[in-house]
């Protein structure tokens, strides 16, 4: 909402500067987003009188003017505007003047003719081209004939004004008009509001002789009032009115239309003027549109209506879409003489439906949608009619033809001063409270700190005690509320174990060299199904109205988005990357989503290109499967799950079939690790990429053993190394499992330290070397005990896998 500072001052006494006022308004509840000076650095622009205007001898499009710029001084000015003419009063930037953008005016010669200044258009004076009246849109602005040559043109054009831009929250629709803001400012500055004069000298004729009004549904349209103003003369509205409209962001059209817009801005009441002679009947009927009914609106568009739209009709055809836009057939035109003025209260739902369906949002419709003051409709009608009489020479017929109820009863809300102080942490007295209500213009009864406040109809946002408390608090001033600390008993805060573990996972992965990424949860329907390791049937979840296909479906894996990150970086020539993400995925097992889907926290990583690098020492190792597996093994150690995790070769869609392991916790799949399928790598245009994905929710829901200290060894351990020859396909992990089982209690550690698959081996065989550490915490082991255990190991290996000691 744009509010002219000068206009506002007409209703309330303001003695502080626009910026001070803005500061006070902001502090007490309505954010002033900007204070704009309409004078954008302009100086030296005066009123001039065009005494003579002749064709430029050397240029078709230029005119040479003799302009009286005051004090008997006549300047020659060359002007290119098509509408410049002798006898006009115009705005002249004299030599030395400054125009917006620090544009300095100097004496010049244009095609051989001297020019002492410039005749200005409104656009040149900083007015938005969209707001300039159409007749002056392509030329200079012509001022009223009573303007005094030599005087400050900005005063005439109200360009010394300031405009406050208010950022209104939805509860403060009462400030969508100048009087509403005046009420607010009056409360802040402890001033009275002066309302405009709405008295009218009516003619002998009675409005009821010209028109009848009928409403089909009072729910859709609780009140409709029509006034008749006869014998108006259409012409431009006075400059002061045009200036205020332009300052408020509305383009002047003609006096009648300008008056309806002016009163809209002043009272917040949308009004519409019909050309009475073009109504096509003597009746107004307000009803729902029929499905498919048409109307040609003011903007010359043919509009197809729906049953949910409310229309004003002449008893037969729609002549306006209620609260949204008038029809073209009954539009006020230059030859209009008799006007029907509509002042109505339409239900916000009806206006919203039509405005949304037709894609038409106007100053009027947005006010109806946010709610207008029911009890101000009549006053606004009177104000507009009086202006039409005053400024367009109209004769106002007596009375207003109405249907519905003109006013509604107001209600009261109770408030207890001690409860208010308890909620705010203040010690405001009943007297202070009462005086604040008075400033707000709220009448009340009070006894013993119990207030009963009559809420004016302009403030429908106030319905409960807390609303009144806020009103008192904000006018009292939030900066006067003390700073205190919670009285409640101290209780320990802190992370849950699960939350702490999730932080541990992140810290660990970052320590392992991975950067954290945060990606979007919405992806494409296709990508949402990639990398699924769920065995059950799942159904992708798509939003009903996506912004794009790219962001339409909830992810079931973090990997598709992480791969997008790899691609994004690859496209910027960064090919060596190590990233991870922790975030929610959404699993839906219902064909039709009726219950909330399952949500799991996943942690996933992707590593591509060089991982370990120390160039001058010649090290440059690209990532491989074992880098990622090592990271996961470390992570499981961190989570105290190492003993319960197994890695089994397995297949996952989009993964390399020979280089992928399913990660299992207690035998149940919780994720996977491996290389992307080479076909996918090619498609994404990335180097060899290894990824992992873990269901952190599943990992962390398992109970883990409390850590217990182990006595430090007091007795020596005995180490035996063995090199085994086995079939090439045999997984090393199977050997380790068997060694561990066969070694028994005394075997404390098994480490694989060599793998050989070279030429020296028999076809189809490989050699694996293990280091076995035997140890008893209670005593020194005898050779015999170790030999027994070790032979058991060798025997098992031979029995199970035919493993032979390598010679």
């Amino acid at each position, binding site marked *: 909402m744009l509010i002219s500072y000068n206009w506002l001052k007409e209703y309330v006494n303001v003695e502080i500067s626009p910026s001070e006022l803005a500061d006070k308004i902001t*502090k007490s*509840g309505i*954010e002033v987003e900007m204070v704009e000076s309409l004078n954008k650095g302009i100086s030296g622009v005066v009123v001039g009188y065009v005494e003579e205007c002749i064709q430029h001898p050397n240029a078709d499009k230029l005119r040479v003017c003799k302009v009286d710029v005051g004090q008997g001084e006549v300047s020659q000015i060359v002007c290119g505007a098509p509408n410049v003419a002798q006898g006009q009063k115009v705005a002249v930037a004299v030599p030395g003047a400054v125009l917006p953008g620090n544009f300095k005016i100097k004496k010049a010669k244009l095609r051989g003719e001297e020019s002492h200044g410039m005749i200005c258009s409104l656009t040149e004076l900083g007015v938005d081209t969209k707001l300039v009246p159409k007749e002056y849109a392509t030329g200079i602005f012509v001022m009223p004939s009573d303007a005094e040559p030599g005087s400050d043109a900005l005063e005439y054009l109200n360009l010394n004004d300031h405009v406050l831009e208010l950022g209104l929250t*939805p*509860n403060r629709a009462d400030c969508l008009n100048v009087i509403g803001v005046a009420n607010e400012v009056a409360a802040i500055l402890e001033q009275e509001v002066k309302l405009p004069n709405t008295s009218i000298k009516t003619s002998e004729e009675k409005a009821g002789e010209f028109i009848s009004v009928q409403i089909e549904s009072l729910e859709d349209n609780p009140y409709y009032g029509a006034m008749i103003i006869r014998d108006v003369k259409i012409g431009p509205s006075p400059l002061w009115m045009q200036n205020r409209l332009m300052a408020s962001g509305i383009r002047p059209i003609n006096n009648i239309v300008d008056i309806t817009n002016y009163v809209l801005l002043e009272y917040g009441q949308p009004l519409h003027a019909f050309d009475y002679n073009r109504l096509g009947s003597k009746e107004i009927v307000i009803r729902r549109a029929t499905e498919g009914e048409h109307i040609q609106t003011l903007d010359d568009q043919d509009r197809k209506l729906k049953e949910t739209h409310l229309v004003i009709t002449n008893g037969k055809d729609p002549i306006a879409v209620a609260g949204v836009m008038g029809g073209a057939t009954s539009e006020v035109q230059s030859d209009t003489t008799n006007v029907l003025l509509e002042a109505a209260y339409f239900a916000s*739902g009806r206006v919203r439906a039509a405005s949304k369906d037709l894609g038409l949002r106007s100053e009027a419709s947005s006010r109806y*949608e946010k709610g207008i003051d029911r009890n101000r409709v009549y006053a606004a009608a009177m104000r507009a009619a009086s202006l039409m009489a005053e400024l367009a020479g109209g004769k106002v017929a007596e009375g207003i033809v109405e249907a519905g109820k003109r006013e509604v009863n107001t209600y009261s809300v109770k408030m207890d001063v001690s409860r208010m102080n308890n909620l*705010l*942490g203040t010690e405001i007295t009943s007297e202070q409270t009462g005086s604040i209500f008075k400033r707000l213009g709220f009448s009340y009864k009070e006894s013993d700190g119990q207030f009963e406040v009559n809420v004016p109809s302009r403030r429908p946002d106030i319905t409960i005690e*807390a609303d009144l408390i*806020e009103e008192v608090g*904000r006018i009292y001033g*939030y*900066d006067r509320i*003390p700073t*205190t600390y*919670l*009285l*409640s008993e101290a*209780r*320990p*805060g*802190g992370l*849950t174990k699960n*939350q702490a573990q999730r932080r541990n996972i992140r810290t660990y992965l*970052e*320590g*392992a*060299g*991975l*950067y*954290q*990424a*945060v*990606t*979007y*949860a919405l992806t494409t329907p296709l990508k949402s199904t990639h990398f699924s390791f769920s065995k059950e049937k799942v159904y992708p*979840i*798509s*939003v*009903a*109205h*996506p*912004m794009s296909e790219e*962001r339409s479906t*909830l992810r079931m894996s973090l990997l598709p988005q992480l791969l997008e*990150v790899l691609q*994004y*970086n690859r496209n*910027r020539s*960064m090919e060596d*990357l190590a*990233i991870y993400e922790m*975030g929610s995925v959404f699993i839906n097992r219902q064909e039709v*989503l*009726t219950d*909330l*889907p399952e*949500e799991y926290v996943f942690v996933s990583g992707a590593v591509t290109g060089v991982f370990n690098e120390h160039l*001058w020492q010649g090290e440059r190792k690209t990532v491989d499967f074992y880098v990622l597996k090592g990271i996961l093994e470390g992570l499981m150690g961190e989570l105290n799950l190492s003993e319960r995790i197994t890695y089994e070769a397995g297949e996952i869609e989009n993964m390399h079939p020979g280089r992928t392991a399913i990660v299992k916790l207690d035998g149940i799949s919780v994720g996977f690790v491996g290389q992307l399928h080479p076909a996918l790598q090619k498609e994404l245009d990335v180097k060899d990429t290894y990824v992992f994905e873990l269901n952190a929710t599943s990992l962390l829901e398992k109970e883990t053993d409390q850590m217990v200290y182990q006595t430090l060894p007091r007795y020596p351990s005995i180490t035996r190394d063995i090199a085994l020859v086995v079939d090439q396909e045999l997984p090393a992990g199977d050997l380790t499992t068997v060694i561990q089982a066969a070694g028994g209690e005394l075997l404390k550690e098994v480490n694989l330290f060599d793998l050989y698959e070279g030429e020296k081996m028999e076809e189809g065989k490989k050699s694996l070397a293990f280091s076995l550490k035997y140890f008893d915490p209670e005593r020194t082991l005898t050779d015999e005990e170790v030999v027994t255990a070790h032979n058991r190991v060798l025997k098992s290996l031979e029995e199970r896998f035919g493993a032979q000691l390598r010679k």
Partner: protein
Amino acid sequence: MKDRLEALKVEAIGQIKEAQDLKDLQAVKVAYLGKKGPITEVLKGMGKLSAEERPVIGAYANEVRDSIQQELDKKQSELENAAIAEKLSKETIDVSLPGRPVKKGNPHPLTAVVTEIEDLFLSMGFTIAEGPEVETDYYNFEALNLPKGHPARDMQDSFFITEDILLRTQTSPVQARTMEKHEGEGPVKIISPGKVYRRDNDDATHSHQFMQIEGLVVDQNVRLSDLKGVLETFAKKMFGEDRKIRLRPSFFPFTEPSVEMDISCFKCSGKGCSICKQTGWIEILGAGMVHPNVLEMAGFDSKKYTGFAFGMGPERIAMLKYGIDDIRHFYANDIRFLKQFKNA
């Protein structure tokens, strides 16, 4: 005899000084102090001396032996030091060569900001509450005093999945769920960080997915002045001890009274600059006293209990703190962007 000893001493010390290495030195030692050496010889001949001369010569012989030994020790340590120095000089490396890099990633800037805020409130006795990102209409809107038909819950602004299920547009549903779990018994003292979704076109200042952190305290006798206290503590810890805060009245459907909190600009300390748009103040968060309807719907007696809630955007805070100009950077995950937050 004394002359002989004197001569031996001079001769030995001369040879010690000329020794080039430890081997030479050992030879000198054996030659002069050994069992078959000249000094031993001299001492053996002491029997021929008179009773008066014997102790004098004996003492002098010991003196000579000690002097030689001292010189030997001195020379030995000299030679050893020289050997070490030579070895060290051969071992010298170029310390200006770069060190072996240690692999280390870092948190995403949003996580860094969220963690910092979490830790701050944890230290004030808050716990962290979490909830689903796919929510019911009830918890996302209705329980927060946004009944059906309320303009702020337009279908156009939210990602609905079905008529009743949507991607949460705020983390406030976690507040509603948490209060409900408390079954009308205070105190509740939580913060709820998380991702939220709105139907916006992504541009420099809008993102269809972003983060929020909300806080909620419900207890008997919770006051707006207490909210001021908590927010002031937060602002000072997060943005610097000399920050001032300012509460401005505002409007949210789930709080009444509602406020917005500004902090004095940390860049210009209130003088006015481009960060604070010349106002000296920066808008940081929205807050207010929990609306009685919200308390009642969650099962709390609004006559007995009051509460405050606040909510802020980690993206905005991170953008202000680090001077980031485009919200899309957070979600593009350009590695050159991510790597900058090592010390965040």
